[in-house]
C-alpha cells in the first residue's frame, strides 16, 4: 500500500494527528461515561471512612465542612448537637502526599487516625498507613469484626491530645511516638501531620465549633 511506505513528512504528520484526534475523542467520551461512577466511588470511600472514625451521626459530614489553614474540619451532628469532628489534611510523605483523616472529640482528643490517600511503597511505608484485619488460614472463613481494623502505629495516637505532655516526634528524633523500621519517613510525616491538625484545632477551637454546630442547636 502507498500509505505504508510513504516518506512524505506532511502525510506522516497528518496521520499522527488523525490517530491522536481519534484516541483523544474516544477518551473524552469514555471519561464522560465513567465520571459519575468515579465520583460515586470516591463519595462511598469517604463516607465509609467517616463512619469508622466518628460516632453515629445523622448529617452529611462531607458537606458540613469548614477550612482553616489548609485543614478541612467536618462536623458529625446527632440530634442537633455536634458530637465529634473529622479533620483532613495532607503532608508530604516518602512518595507524594499522605492524606490523613482524623476523628477528634470536641475537646481536641484524638478518636482515631486513618490514612485516606497515600502512595507509599507497598510493604514498607504503606504498612503504617493501612488498617487491615489480619487473616490467617485458621480464621479464614470466620466472620470479620465490623469497624476499624487495627494498626499498631496509627492506634497509638488514639486518646492523645495536643494539650497532653507528648513530644510529637518519632523516637528516633527524640520524641514519644513509636515508629516502624523501613517506614521512618512515613511515620515522621504522619506524626507531624497529626500534630499539625490537633494544634490547628486547639488554636481555632471556638471558631470551628461555632461554625460546625447546626443553627438552633447548642
Amino acid at each position: 500500500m502507498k500509505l505504508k511506505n510513504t516518506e512524505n513528512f506532511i502525510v506522516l504528520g497528518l496521520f499522527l494527528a488523525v490517530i491522536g484526534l481519534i484516541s483523544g475523542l474516544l477518551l473524552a467520551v469514555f471519561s464522560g461515561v465513567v465520571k459519575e461512577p468515579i465520583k460515586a466511588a470516591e463519595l462511598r470511600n469517604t463516607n465509609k471512612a467517616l463512619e469508622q472514625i466518628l460516632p453515629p451521626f445523622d448529617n452529611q459530614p462531607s458537606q458540613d465542612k469548614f477550612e482553616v489553614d489548609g485543614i478541612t474540619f467536618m462536623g458529625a451532628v446527632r440530634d442537633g448537637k455536634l458530637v465529634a469532628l473529622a479533620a483532613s489534611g495532607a503532608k508530604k510523605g516518602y512518595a507524594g502526599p499522605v492524606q490523613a483523616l482524623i476523628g477528634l472529640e470536641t475537646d481536641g482528643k484524638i478518636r482515631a487516625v486513618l490514612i485516606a490517600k497515600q502512595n507509599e511503597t507497598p510493604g514498607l511505608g504503606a504498612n503504617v498507613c493501612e488498617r487491615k484485619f489480619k487473616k490467617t488460614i485458621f480464621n479464614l472463613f470466620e466472620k470479620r469484626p465490623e469497624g476499624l481494623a487495627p494498626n499498631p502505629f496509627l492506634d497509638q495516637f488514639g486518646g492523645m491530645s495536643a494539650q497532653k505532655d507528648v513530644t510529637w516526634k518519632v523516637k528516633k528524633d527524640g520524641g514519644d511516638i513509636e515508629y516502624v523500621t523501613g517506614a521512618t519517613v512515613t511515620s515522621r510525616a504522619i506524626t507531624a501531620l497529626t500534630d499539625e491538625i490537633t494544634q490547628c484545632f486547639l488554636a481555632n477551637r471556638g471558631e470551628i465549633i461555632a461554625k460546625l454546630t447546626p443553627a438552633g442547636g447548642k
Partner: protein
Amino acid sequence: MSLLKDFTKGLWKENPVLVLLLGTCPTLAVTSSATNGFGMGVATTGVLLGSNLVISLIAGIVPKKVRIPVYIVVIATFVTIIDLLMKAYAPPALYTALGIFIPLIVVNCIVLGRAEAFASKNGPVRSALDGLGMGLGFTLTLTMLGAAREFLSSGSVFEVKVITGWTTDFLLPSAAPGAFILVGLILAAKNYASYRKAVKEGRLYIPPKGLDCRHCNICTAHIDDESEK
C-alpha cells in the same frame, strides 16, 4: 492447532517474564504481594488484548516511519481506559496499591514488543490470542512471584497468614533487591531445566536471545558450548 499454539506459547515457552525478559520493571516493582502481582497482571492483560487487536487491524495502513508513535498512542489510550475503569470499579485498596504503576503500562516493553513483533504481522484473531496468552503468562508469573515474595517476607499468601506465629516482617524479599535475587534464581533454575532437557534429548541448548551470555567472557560457559558442537 496453530491458533492454540498462539495462545499457549505465552504461558511457558515464550513466557514474557522468564523467557523474553520483557517488562522487568513492573515485575520487580509491584510483586511485593500476590494480590498486587495479580492486579497488575490482569490490567496488563486487558491492555495487551486491546492493543494487539487494534494494532493488527490498523497495521496495514500505518506508515512504517511513524509506526512506533502510533502504537504508543493506541496503547496509551487503552491504558487510560483501564486506569479510569479501575478508579471507578476496582476495590480502593487495590487501586491505591497499583495506582502509580498503571500509567506505566504504556512503556511496558511487553505491550510494545508484542505490537511490533506479532500484532503488526498477523491477523486480529491470532493477535488477540497472542495478547491474551502473553497477558496470562505475565499474570501467572507475577502472581507466583508475588506469592513467593509475600510468603518469604511475612509468611502470608494473598494476605492470609499461612504461618500464624510469624510476626516480624523480613524486609529483603519484599524490597526491590530481594525481587532481583528471586527473579535471578528463578531464571537460573528455568535455564538449567531447559539445558538438562536439551542434553537428554541430544540437542544443543541454545539460550533465548535475551539470556545469551556468549558475548560476555566473565565465565567460560561459551567454551563449553563450543566443545559440544
